[in-house]
């Protein structure tokens, strides 16, 4: 499946979902829906978060899985937290 575009190719702002379709009965729903914050993260960030959840939120376990040092993994998590905060701020600004 193709990866979903999250940002406007023209101006770079976050895109909204306008139409949703049921694959079973073809019912279509139209409106303006925001993506969940996690979906707005970059692909690498999403993969890290997914793996972090699978590792029961243990940075030590993540460190072993990734064969990277604990501070390297923790800094990566800090980076993702900063990205989430930035997205939240952008959403709040967009919603007025």
């Amino acid at each position, binding site marked *: 499946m193709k990866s979903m575009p999250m940002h406007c190719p023209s101006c770079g702002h976050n895109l909204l979902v306008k139409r949703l379709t049921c694959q079973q009965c073809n019912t279509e729903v139209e409106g303006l829906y925001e993506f969940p914050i996690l979906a707005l993260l970059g692909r690498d960030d999403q993969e890290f978060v997914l*793996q972090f959840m699978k590792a029961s939120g243990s940075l030590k376990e993540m460190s072993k899985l990734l064969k*990277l040092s604990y501070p390297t993994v923790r800094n990566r998590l800090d980076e993702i937290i900063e990205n989430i905060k930035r997205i939240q701020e952008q959403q709040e600004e967009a919603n007025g």
Partner: protein
Amino acid sequence: MADISSESSAIAKRAGIKDWLFNPFVFVAGSISLLLGLVAILLAGYIGSLSNTHFDGVLDMHSGAPALLGKFLAEGIINWLSLAIVLYIVGRIISKSSFRAVDLFGTQALARWPTVILAVGIMAPPCQRLVKALMPMASNPGASIQAATMDIILSSMVALVMLLALVLMVALMYRSFSLCSNIKGGKAAAAFIIGLVIAEIVSKIAIANVLPAPPIDISKPAQQFVSQLAKGDFSNATKSFDATMTQAMPADKLAEAWKSLTTQMGAFQKQLGARSAVEQGFIVAHVKCQFDKGAIDVKVVFNNSQQISGLWFTPSQ
């Protein structure tokens, strides 16, 4: 979706010597780095003791003054702790991220591994000859230096390698601080430089106060050794010899030497006193002994581990 663990494992596997050399803390930190770092610090201290080379400050290295092995080892530990403690405090004040002390202390210890290169470098024969040639300058700045040109050239080449090792050590110290405290850019560089300057001062003060410089009093072990000779306990006397002396003068040869002395000077009567000093880079004790026919100085030379590495019988002065 690609599995991140397999993806990053691939990155870890791709990591070459360059990554491990210049950026090892991406892969190793915490207790493992602490253990490896402490081994490196103690090893550098031990190798340094073989050529009387002191790491007497976070970034300092001086050759010449003899001392006991413990001092060489303790200097490395003090240097590491001085910088690690200062950077930990600086990091706690500046960093927005919470970080583990074991990561900073461990990676700071491992960052000191290039001191092993420095300690080995100074042991190179041309460097040793040059150090000996320069030693008179320490007591008399106006003294003339007699060093071979080739020694100066070779020593300069070794010095260049040692300089690169020093630069690598400082770079690793900085990377350790930046990574563990998650501080980047100019802020990290400024905080590190300030921390390094403070730690340098702290380490110099700590080494001067906690580990006072010689005089090293080795009169007692020297007197004990002479007592063993006087009692004819040569097998126990040779237990305090270093490897070279043990090979050169086993118990029977020592007994022979003592017998030859007493034949010449008469029977041993008593010890008249002892003094110790640092002579030409060696720790030496003179034990004055009274024999039937006169007085003799037993000159006992010790290495940094307080083992006897030389023995002479000289007319008393």
